[in-house]
């Protein structure tokens, strides 16, 4: 602690939340240091205490439930916990800034962004209106917002998500703080925008010598940007060290499991994802001894004792009682050999689902005055064609607004296409009426993204799953339905007794399993999976993907797998289609697409996706795709990607590229390929 370079030192921090069901020990005995100008990442899954510990530094814990019960937070030699509220307020925004996860809700919707940036300047630096305005303009240019003068008077709703996060960063930088805490700063953003924001933060922190604490669950982000890493599990730090230490030589089984359960773009596709089985413990009543023991594959008798965070190698600490054995290579080496994912053969010629020239335009009216308005079209899906063979998985990737979800909704016939055909087993279902659709609806089911809002909170799990069984008379009576529900629950890895529970009594992963069981109840042939794992933690995500793959093998299901996570899509898909602004850019065999992307957009997407390995990441040049995703209301002329494409020339502005087969089975819509 004598190190004068240490800016922030958290010592034995304990945070409790008092709830009606008891005391949640959200943070227990967390200690770490941040040196000036360095980037520290805190990694962990939801509920592990990573956000709570940083809110405690800002003293912004929800009152009165959350309180620091023990520990010190030394910032430049002063214990922040001893300061009065007023003294703490003076430091917030001036010495320590915080950037939050949700750019859409973190800015005040009724105040112009100029005022929101200038506020800390008025308060901390006592600037005049003109000085503050000049500084705000400077800050906006610094974070890469063009035309800053004019944009100062605009309101948050006039900015895109990525732009709002830039504004948040500008606010954070306003008073030249010494420390910025970024809580999941890019989780809500698209891949290409995420890369831009992270690159910007890293560059600014270097240039201005600002220490950065990044809190995230995304290991790829950590690998590219962090100097040092703390891994948290169940309220405690379980491993800490340099990024190289933690990624290349993890010494805690949880960290090891975390590294392995992320599907990776830089490795051959495995047949099965490795996962950490089970669920994190409930912090209302944590288990004695090692908290990870219940999920640990190296569990031994000794694990009933409480492990301390001990130095294994210089500067590399692990809270595992068997860490020395891991370090010595006695355990943990015998990783299950991952058999390479073989290609699953679809029955050639026979198409289960065939989509041709699919279009969906939404008409929107935009008011331009009290009595005038303009009608315009959002071309959500524009000329998309593909087909899926029985038993195959087609991945559909793209950033927000690219139309991938609309494609899913069209196939489910929750929307009626403007143009084009959707053939299911040879029958065009694109124009069918409600009555004719009924038997087909049974055969095409859906799994939604959000397991929290897609289950009715007032129905039990059993009722939710049984409802379609009884409506469609798949089973004769209630007793048979109950039996079938039990079967379905077991098929998705839950227990029959859980039918009595309500959704709020289940974890996110369990709810997603319920969602899968509900879809399976209809005995479908095809399932549209709309971002089924993006709301889940890494270790749970792997469990769900494996379940989906097992069910596919057993029941011969066909999936349309919609997601924005390239690695997840690669893992599960046989073929992958890439969409951008309503159009299909590339469609190819999964392995071919990732090994040899042809379309510049696909290349940019793959470049932007961080890989959880610091040695690879640091050698990769920063190749971020510039610019914003254009509004689908006014898509660019010609090739919709030309505004952001490095290869684009005048021809691209004028001609809409046809999608054509460049190699067998590899389709690309680009003039330059």
């Amino acid at each position, binding site marked *: 602690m004598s190190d004068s370079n240490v800016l922030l030192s958290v010592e034995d921090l304990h945070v409790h939340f008092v709830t009606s069901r008891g005391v949640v020990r959200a943070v227990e005995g967390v200690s770490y240091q941040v040196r000036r100008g360095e980037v520290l990442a805190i990694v962990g899954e939801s509920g592990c205490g990573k956000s709570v510990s940083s809110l405690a530094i800002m003293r912004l814990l929800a009152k009165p439930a959350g309180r620091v019960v023990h520990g010190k937070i030394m910032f430049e030699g002063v214990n922040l916990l001893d300061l009065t509220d007023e003294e703490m307020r003076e430091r917030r925004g001036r010495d320590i800034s*915080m950037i939050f996860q949700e750019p859409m809700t973190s800015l*005040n919707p009724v105040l112009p962004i100029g005022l929101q940036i200038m506020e800390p300047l008025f308060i901390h630096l006592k600037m005049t209106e003109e000085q503050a305005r000049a500084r705000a303009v400077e800050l906006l240019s610094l974070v890469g917002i063009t035309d800053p003068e004019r944009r100062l008077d605009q309101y948050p709703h006039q900015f895109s998500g990525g732009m709002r996060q830039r504004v948040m960063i500008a606010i954070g930088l306003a008073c030249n703080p010494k420390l910025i805490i970024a809580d999941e700063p890019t989780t809500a953003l698209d891949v290409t925008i995420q890369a831009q924001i992270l690159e910007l933060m890293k560059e600014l922190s270097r240039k201005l010598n600002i220490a950065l604490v990044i809190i995230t669950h995304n290991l790829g982000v950590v690998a590219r940007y962090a100097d040092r890493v703390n891994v948290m599990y169940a309220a405690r730090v379980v491993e800490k060290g340099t990024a190289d230490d933690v990624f290349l030589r993890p010494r805690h089984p949880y960290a090891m499991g975390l590294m392995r359960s992320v599907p990776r773009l830089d490795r051959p596709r495995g047949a099965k994802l490795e996962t950490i089985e089970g669920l994190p413990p409930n912090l209302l009543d944590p288990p004695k001894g090692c908290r990870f023991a219940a999920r640990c594959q190296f569990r031994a008798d000794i694990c009933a004792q409480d492990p301390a965070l001990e130095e294994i190698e210089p500067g590399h600490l692990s809270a595992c009682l068997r860490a020395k054995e891991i370090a010595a290579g006695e355990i943990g080496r015998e990783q299950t050999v991952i058999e390479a994912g073989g290609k699953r053969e679809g029955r050639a010629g026979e198409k289960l689902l065939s989509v041709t020239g699919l279009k969906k335009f939404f008409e929107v009216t935009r008011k331009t005055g009290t009595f005038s308005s303009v009608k315009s079209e959002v071309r959500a899906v524009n000329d998309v064609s593909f087909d899926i063979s029985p038993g195959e998985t087609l991945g559909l990737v793209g950033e927000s607004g690219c139309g991938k979800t609309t494609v899913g909704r069209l196939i489910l016939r929750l929307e009626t296409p403007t143009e084009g055909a959707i053939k299911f087993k040879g029958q065009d279902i694109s124009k069918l009426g409600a009555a004719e659709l009924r038997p087909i609806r049974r055969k095409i089911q859906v799994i939604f993204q959000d397991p929290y809002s897609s289950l009715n909170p007032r129905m039990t799990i059993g009722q939710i799953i049984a409802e379609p069984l009884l409506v469609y008379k798949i089973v004769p009576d209630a007793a048979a339905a109950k039996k079938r529900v039990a079967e379905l629950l077991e098929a998705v890895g839950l227990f029959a007794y859980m039918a009595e529970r309500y959704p709020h009594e289940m974890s996110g992963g369990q709810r997603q399993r319920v969602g899968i069981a509900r879809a399976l109840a209809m005995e479908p042939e095809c399932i549209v999976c709309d971002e089924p794992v993006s709301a889940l933690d890494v270790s749970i995500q792997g469990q769900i993907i494996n379940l989906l793959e097992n069910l596919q093998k057993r029941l011969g299901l066909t999936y349309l797998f919609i997601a924005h996570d390239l690695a997840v899509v690669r893992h599960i898909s046989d073929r992958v289609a890439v969409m951008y602004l309503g159009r299909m850019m590339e469609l190819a065999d999964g392995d071919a697409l990732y090994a040899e992307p042809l379309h510049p957009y696909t290349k940019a997407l793959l470049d932007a996706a961080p890989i959880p390995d610091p040695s690879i990441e640091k050698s990769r040049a920063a190749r971020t795709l510039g610019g914003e995703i254009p509004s689908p209301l006014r898509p660019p002329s010609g090739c919709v990607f030309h505004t952001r494409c490095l290869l684009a020339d005048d021809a691209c502005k004028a001609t809409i590229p046809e999608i054509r087969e460049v190699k067998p089975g590899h389709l690309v819509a680009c003039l330059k390929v």
Partner: protein
Amino acid sequence: MVTQETIDAERARLGLDRPLGVQFADWMVGLVTLDLGKSMWTDRPVTEEIGLRLELTMQVAIMATIFAVLIAIPLGTISALFKDTWVDYAVRLITIAGLAVPSFWLGMIIILALLYWFNWLPPITYTPIYVDPVANISQLIWPALAVGYRYSAVVARMVRSSIVEVMKEDYIRTARAKGVFEKLVVARHAMRNALLPAITVIGLEFAFLIGGLVVTEQVFNLNGLGKLFVQAVSRNDFTLIQAIVMLIAVVFIVTNLIVDLLYALFDPRIRLGGK
């Protein structure tokens, strides 16, 4: 014995011999030109009958609104900021009482108290404010208070719950993380967002007061619109009833329009012409 001729003549005079569509069109034209016919009881023009009463009722409603807003916004805000402390409990007790106590009963208590302690009663005859402001206000302040208490209770509860909600928003946390003074967090960041639902309630309550003050007007012996309405109903005075119902409908629509316009003033996302 009334002859058929007398009946026919009367029907012709009232226009009842014409087709229904023509009668309706005639009435609509009258409505637009503010010619609503004559009261069937007093034979004076309906607009004249309503005019004087509307002035009085309007004034009571406006005074009650001012009173309610002045009380409700600070009270609701304090209650929200000190949520689950004795301050909050006290405010909630006051507001729940405001909802439970009928306005006319409170009015009676006010009159009795004035009589008992000050040996004074508000004037009985109505003096318009432009004739004698003191006499006018000393008469109308009491019904405005009686009605305003309930009104302020409704608004205060709305303000409280919406501030409690807003204080949980991410942008409040952002403001605090910037080191903004707590007072400014509430005044600048929370209030503008929290007032939107309160404005809706204020608008609805205001519209309700025009025509909804029947009993309170009785207690304070005010010759207002509510009283007129009751009289018109008991006398089967159709032309008058029609006009009052129409008026109340117009008041509801106009106040809602004003509320919508205020929304646009407070919330840039609703402003017209924006993207």
